[in-house]
């Protein structure tokens, strides 16, 4: 408490103004005058009395200084002094200052930008009430965290474990009323979603439990929209409440708008419209929650009651788990599967950070990038430290003079550190601005049309603290060693040795050389990384996926869910016929899925004559395609025949398999004519038999970088229950964009209600390679930056050495040394540094490379070609950087050099 009072008095005193010095001086003058008057009264003469009084008083200047110190002002005054001096010193050397501030701004900016994204998707808690109390309920520890509606209803109705529970799912809704689709980020939410999160709407009301009834609540289908959507779609209309928004053609009445800071629970996605889970049948058909037993789509969250621990909630959950599992068992499953299901366990996982696909997909990449920019900043620091070392050498005289007239070494180190800190802060300020821009660019890089990202990267306190911390750390890194070095030599050294003509002085460069070697090592690490990532991208772009990605336009068409099966079949066939007739279309086909998309369909199979060791052995991934699909995708048919018009609904059920499936189930025997059984949909222990009629080449299913897997194709024409959505694959001879208009006309000619989405297949494939592409791009940028910085550092040190050894070179040349031998003299030292740096860099690359194996495809982290390539590039750049100043030194006119003595 006393320090608080002192502080307060100090502040108040200072606020009162700067009369301190005058007041003190007046007070002291009075004292001396009165004493002198007293002595004069005692009979001394005036001059002697005044002198005696002053003597008795003591050293007034020193006392005044001590009084000032009493208020703790010396520190402030000397800081002010240091700052002023530092600004003058930096301004006196604008070239150095600009170089240092710019490289720091780049380094700190890149670090801040990457950290900003890490912060947004991995560190920042959701902006909801007490986010730490939110946990996610998961079934088992697998990668999938979605549960079905029956489980949700059970958890909701038995929520003793929590003070509140909520469920939600994301889906892209179509705002258009037929025609080309207009996507909106949708949220399916439970009735008390907003209540449990503590999000109060900015306008209108949030959902209540009675809004979330199966088939629509008390007020019919209702929606809550986000602030952003309100601004964008309704132009911030104050009368938006009560208006309708059409989602997949169904009207929803808007009842509320959430505040700007609430962007949903997915931190990289944002949301536009939220609707109750109970509205599921309105959009997707289906009769009731029991049908939903195979629809795993909801994330379930609970809020741990105040005063309770997660452990207690977990215990509760474990106690009620058996009842929940018994109530949600799938009746059509085999007894083994049901027994397996009853053994599952509910797990609670913290959910306060929200969910993020970016977090899962880019975690390793972000860490690798963070490490890269950290290394770049280190290299930049080494450069500045080298510049400062050279400057400290040039300032040796100044520092010696200052020490000679009484400055303590600590005081000078502090002054030099203030200068460094000033540089770092200027760099950090620039870097912060750079990061504001860079962060947006980065998010733009990883955001695509099919997966639009909305990451709130507006800097918060943590990002700000990171920048400040980075600045202080860099100032220590690049400033401390040169400052201590510069003042170590003692005061006589600089004054005596500063003369020209001494041949020593290389001693001070040991540190500089070490810095250069370190820079070379770090640059090599970054170059190797860039090489590995570029190799990965090259492999991904050139790998044969089993299909052609060029000149294919994908059209996704959705019919209203109310259409009958007959209507669907007729529409799909008619559209396909019309598409094939369009001039410019080389071939066209329809399919349920398209390759290289996140969607998938896998099921167990019962191949003839194949005995499986475990059920997983017979798992096959499926697609349903029309005739000419393989021709359109340019996937070679290796054996047998394609689907044809003879494979209609009442004919024998047929199947085409890929090589992997054929090899796995039938070995070297021909698969043609063999039968494979599949479970009959919705029935237990009933199978439908399919006859294999063809074998196609292996293709990639979800991802370009996956291993070949077993895939089988069924015929569209034999689909007894076609869904409301179909995808057309259209191959053209030329650019695909020109086809969009005629395709749209053709499809709406058949069905005006179909909503359409067009995407170039090449774009879809490229977007799936976004992560390796971005990593390769950024690591190349950082690698080049590192190379540039290292080269500049090397050049600087060689040039500085050459300048220091000018007179030595002059003497050597006067004595008859050849230019080559002088150049070699200069390069020898650098060559040793280069070898040392490259060896250290290679060793570090081998160690660090193991950490990024998950990001590589087709290259090993110790690939000799990549390592050697990076070393060669670095060596060439370094040789040039050292050769230029060395040759300049060797061209010196010896007479001139010696005359300068």
């Amino acid at each position: 408490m006393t320090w608080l009072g002192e502080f307060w008095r100090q502040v108040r005193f200072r606020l009162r103004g700067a009369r301190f010095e005058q007041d003190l001086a007046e007070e002291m003058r009075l004292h001396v005058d009165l004493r002198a008057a007293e002595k004069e009264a005692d009979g001394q003469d005036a001059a002697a009395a005044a002198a005696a009084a002053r003597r008795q008083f003591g050293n007034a200047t020193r006392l005044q200084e001590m009084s000032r110190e009493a208020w703790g002002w010396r520190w402030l005054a000397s800081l002010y002094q240091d700052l002023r001096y530092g600004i003058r010193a930096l301004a006196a050397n604008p070239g150095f200052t600009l170089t240092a501030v710019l490289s720091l701004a780049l380094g700190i900016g890149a670090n801040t930008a990457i950290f900003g994204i890490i912060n947004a998707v991995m560190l920042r808690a959701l902006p909801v009430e007490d986010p730490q109390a939110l946990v996610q309920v998961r079934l088992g520890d697998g990668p999938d965290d979605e549960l079905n509606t029956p489980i949700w209803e059970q958890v909701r109705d038995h929520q003793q474990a929590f003070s509140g529970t909520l469920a939600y799912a994301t889906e892209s809704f179509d705002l258009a009323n037929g025609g080309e689709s207009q996507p909106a980020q949708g949220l399916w939410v439970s009735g008390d979603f907003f209540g449990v999160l503590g999000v109060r709407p900015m306008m209108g009301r949030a959902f209540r439990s009675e809004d979330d009834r199966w088939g629509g609540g008390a007020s019919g289908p209702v929606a809550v929209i986000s602030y952003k959507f309100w601004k964008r779609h309704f132009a911030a209309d104050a009368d938006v409440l009560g208006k309708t928004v059409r989602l997949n053609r169904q009207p929803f009445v808007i009842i509320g708008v959430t505040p700007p800071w609430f962007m949903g629970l997915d931190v990289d996605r944002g949301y536009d419209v939220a609707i109750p889970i109970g509205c599921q049948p309105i959009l997707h058909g289906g009769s009731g929650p029991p049908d939903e037993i195979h629809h795993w789509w909801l994330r379930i969250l609970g809020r741990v009651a105040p005063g309770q621990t997660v452990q207690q909630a977990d215990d509760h959950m474990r106690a009620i788990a058996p009842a929940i599992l018994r109530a949600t068992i799938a009746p059509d499953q085999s007894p083994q599967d049901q027994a397996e299901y009853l053994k599952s366990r509910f797990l609670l996982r913290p959910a306060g950070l929200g969910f993020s696909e970016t977090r899962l997909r880019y975690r390793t990449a972000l860490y690798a990038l963070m490490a890269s920019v950290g290394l770049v900043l280190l290299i930049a620091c080494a450069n500045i430290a080298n510049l400062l070392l050279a400057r400290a050498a040039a300032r040796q005289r100044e520092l010696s003079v200052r020490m000679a007239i009484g400055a303590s070494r600590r005081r000078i180190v502090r002054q030099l550190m203030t200068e460094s800190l000033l540089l770092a802060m200027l760099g950090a300020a620039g870097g912060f601005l750079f990061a504001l821009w860079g962060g947006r660019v980065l998010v733009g890089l990883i955001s695509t049309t099919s997966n639009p990202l909305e990451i709130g990267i507006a800097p918060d306190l943590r990002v700000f603290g990171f920048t400040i911390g980075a600045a202080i750390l860099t100032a220590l890194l690049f400033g401390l060693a040169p400052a201590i070095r510069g003042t170590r030599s003692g005061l006589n050294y600089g004054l005596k040795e500063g003369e020209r003509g001494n041949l020593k002085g290389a001693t001070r460069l040991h540190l500089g050389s070490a810095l250069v070697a370190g820079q070379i090592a770090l640059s090599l690490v970054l170059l190797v990384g860039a090489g590995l990532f570029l190799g990965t991208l090259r492999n991904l772009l050139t790998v044969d996926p089993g299909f052609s990605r060029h000149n294919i336009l994908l059209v996704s068409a959705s019919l209203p869910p109310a259409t009958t099966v007959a209507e669907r079949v007729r529409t799909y066939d008619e559209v396909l016929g019309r598409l094939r007739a369009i001039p410019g279309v080389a071939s066209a086909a329809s399919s349920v899925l398209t390759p290289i998309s996140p969607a998938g369909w896998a099921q167990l199979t019962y191949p003839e004559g194949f005995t499986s060791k475990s059920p997983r052995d017979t798992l096959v991934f499926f697609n349903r395609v029309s005739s000419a699909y393989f021709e359109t995708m340019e996937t070679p048919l290796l054996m047998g025949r394609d689907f044809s018009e003879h494979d209609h609904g009442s004919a024998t059920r047929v199947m085409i398999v890929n090589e992997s499936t054929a090899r796995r189930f039938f070995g070297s025997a021909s698969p043609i004519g063999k039968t494979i059984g599949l479970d009959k949909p919705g029935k237990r222990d009933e199978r439908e038999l399919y006859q294999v009629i063809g074998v196609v080449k292996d293709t990639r299913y979800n991802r370009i970088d996956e291993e070949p897997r077993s895939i089988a194709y069924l015929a569209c024409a034999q689909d007894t229950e076609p869904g409301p959505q179909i995808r057309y694959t259209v191959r053209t001879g030329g650019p695909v964009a020109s086809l969009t208009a005629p395709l749209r006309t053709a499809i709406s000619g058949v069905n005006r209600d179909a909503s359409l989405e067009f995407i170039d297949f090449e774009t879809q494939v490229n977007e799936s390679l976004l992560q390796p592409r971005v990593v390769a791009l950024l690591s190349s940028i950082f690698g080049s930056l590192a190379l540039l910085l290292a080269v500049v550092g090397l050049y600087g040190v060689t040039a500085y050495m050459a300048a220091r050894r000018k007179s030595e070179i002059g003497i050597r040349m006067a004595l008859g040394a050849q230019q080559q031998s002088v150049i070699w003299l200069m390069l020898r030292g650098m060559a040793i540094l280069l070898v040392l740096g490259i060896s250290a860099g290679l060793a570090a690359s081998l160690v660090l490379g193991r950490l990024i194996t998950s990001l590589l495809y087709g290259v090993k982290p110790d690939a000799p070609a990549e390592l050697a390539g990076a070393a060669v590039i670095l060596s060439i750049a370094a040789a040039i950087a050292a050769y230029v100043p060395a040759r300049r030194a060797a061209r010196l006119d010896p007479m001139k050099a010696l005359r300068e003595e």
Partner: protein
Amino acid sequence: MAEIPRRDEIPPGTLYMLILKVLVRHGELHGYEIANSIQRISDDVLQVEEGSLYPALQRMLLKGWVTAEWGVTAGNRRARYYRPTAAGRKQLNAEMEQYQRVNGAIQKVLQTA
């Protein structure tokens, strides 16, 4: 001429106590009067380096033991008058108590010799 070595004879830390004591006794004094009081009361034995009063007074202002206000002397000159605060009185008592305790202890040691 003998004043300067005397500076060390005021044990460190006791200067505050002496200043506070004369201030409590007189209520309100300026710097010169404080120096004179200490000297007079101690029969000229204790002589501070007079100037060192001033840094001490500043420290005491900061600690909140005294307050200062400008006034006018009998000779019609501006002077800063110091006045003890409640915290100052408390500090004086505490320091006196401690001083006497230490002093008593030292005396005991000296008497046993």
